[in-house]
């Protein structure tokens, strides 16, 4: 349904994102914390990738890096052929807003806004008119099964429903890549299954999906699993099912 034209036309084989010897180091006072070490990675359009690894292995950091929320300390990160390191802050904002959709473990909805307003936020920052964005936000809410709860506040929704709002928000600007950081981590298994089904559907529609998870069951849905250990890529393999 929403198979975007960019995905099908521009080379399916060309990598949408490439990381070359990417490192990320945090400085905590005098201590250097090397969170990512020599990451080499290429992800193609339409892939469904799971990133796994023990807690503290750098999964979230890697995902944030992919989402242009963070900049590498060393090495290169090319997104759509362009080096992220050379981009201005406003350009990074534009990429995050228009090309990438984030789904977080803790939903991260804005509590003073209702369902429709939350979904409309990314469109607002891309300059859509109020009318257009509200209309689309309603459609998206209905798409994730919240057509009856358009004016509810996040606090009035269950965790699963909140995460569905977050997914609707993530796809508001029809992004190329959807990044999800343990999207089912806070959910019971039933809600988790629902969320995974929605993600599956997005993948079928051609979105590039990168999901961080602990859960082997979640990972089996993905076509490729990247395992991190202590900031390095331990294994990177296609999922035989």
């Amino acid at each position, binding site marked *: 349904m929403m198979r975007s034209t960019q995905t099908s036309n521009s080379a399916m084989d060309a990598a949408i994102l490439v990381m070359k010897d990417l490192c990320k180091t945090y400085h905590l006072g005098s201590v250097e914390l090397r969170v990512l070490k020599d990451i080499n990675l290429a992800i193609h359009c339409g892939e469904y990738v799971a990133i796994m690894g023990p807690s503290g292995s750098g999964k979230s950091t890697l995902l944030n890096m992919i989402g242009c929320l963070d900049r590498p300390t060393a090495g290169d990160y090319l997104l759509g052929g362009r080096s992220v390191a050379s981009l201005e*802050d*406003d350009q990074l*904002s534009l990429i*995050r807003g228009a090309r990438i959709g*984030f789904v977080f473990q803790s939903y991260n909805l804005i509590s003073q806004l209702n369902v429709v307003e939350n979904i409309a936020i990314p469109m607002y920052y891309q*300059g859509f008119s109020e*009318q257009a964005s509200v209309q689309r936000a309603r459609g998206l809410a209905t798409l994730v099964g919240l057509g009856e709860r358009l004016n509810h506040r996040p606090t009035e929704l269950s965790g699963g429903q909140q995460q569905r709002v977050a997914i609707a928000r993530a796809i508001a600007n029809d992004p190329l890549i959807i990044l999800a950081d343990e999207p089912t981590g806070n959910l019971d298994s039933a809600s988790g299954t629902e969320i995974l089904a929605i993600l599956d559907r997005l993948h079928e529609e051609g979105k590039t999906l990168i999901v961080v998870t602990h859960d082997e069951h979640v990972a089996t849905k993905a076509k490729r699993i990247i395992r991190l250990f202590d900031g390095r890529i331990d294994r990177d393999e296609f999922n035989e099912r």
Partner: protein
Amino acid sequence: MTVFRVKRIVRLGIKSLWMHRLRSTLTTLGIVFGVASVIAMLAIGEGASRDAQERIAQLGSRNIIVKTVAPPEDQSAPGHQRILNEYGLTYDDAERFQNSIPGIQVIVPNRRLSQQAFYRNRRVPVEVIGTVPWYPSISPVRPRFGRFLTVTDMRYKQSVCVVEEGLVRDLFGVDDPLGQDVKIAGDYYRVVGIATTQNRAASEDKDLSPARKTGGANLGGIYIPLTTVKNHFGEVATQTGPATGSTMQRIELQEIIVQVRSIDRVLRTRQSVQALLALSHKKNDYEIIVPLELMRRARDVQRIFTLVLGSIAAISLLVGGIGIMNIMMATVSERTREIGIRRALGARKRDIVIQFLSETLLLTLFGGIVGIVVGSAIPFGVSYFGNMRTLITPGSLVLAFGISSAVGLVFGLYPAYRAANMDPIESLRHE
């Protein structure tokens, strides 16, 4: 589309402020009081200064008023129960001014006497002003009905008078005063005119607003030709004071008003007048009043007044602004996570700045509007209960509004800047 955007930003701001209604309200109180005090103080100051300016302007800005005052030795003459005190301005003085000072337009010598006026069975205390026909040229007094005194009245020492408008009801009731006879100190005077005090302020000085009709002395005046007064009342008056007993005074003139041709001659002429008087008066029995100087002094005083009030108001607004900044800093740190989320969803730094700045602006503008309402109500109360003149100028409203938005901008900028420059990841990790 920009309209949509503004509407949306405003709505978002209101929503966020509404989440903390009490806090937002308390925060704006500083601005409310600051703005209200600016408006109220300026209105009271402005009213007072207008009042002063108008009263002075009624004296005439091209006039130099020389008044007879009792010389200081007079009070210290114990033992003498009945002495004849001779002092004050004389006809000779007036003539000397006329002959030796260049640039004089007119000279008006006046006698002023407190008397009782009788009409039928009514009795009203009045001030008899013995004056010359050209008195209106140096004062705002104009004939309203009938005529003013004429040269003929003067030459033939006619028993005629012109009554001030304010006196008419008390003295004549519903009768038409024109042609009636009024008895003052045993003599009858025919009323030939009714005088009114015209608003000169507006025509002479465009700085001054329309005057109220209360300028001048409390006693109503009756104008009688100077020559007639001299004839009927003489120049010797008996005064009975509680301390000094009764004394006889001989005073030729109570005042001489000199009008010069142009304003730039006023100060020079004042010096000439002073020099001439110093020659002929041994006693210090006169004072010189220059309305122009008074006006300038009043203006200076007002400037200082405004400056002081302005500083006080500025300080209170500063305090209010710091309060707002403090709350906004708290808001920003409380909403760190929201900022991170918005950044992840595509908000540029600029968008975050606009969001928080507009919240601060909404707060201060709301405070400013409430302050304007409160600040405009205070002067009304002061005028009503305190019987003081107040004047709210449009300028002070604009100023207050401008100040509150400026406070919003200045004190909102730093918190907004802080918000925009937070690291997106750290904001997202924030609990």
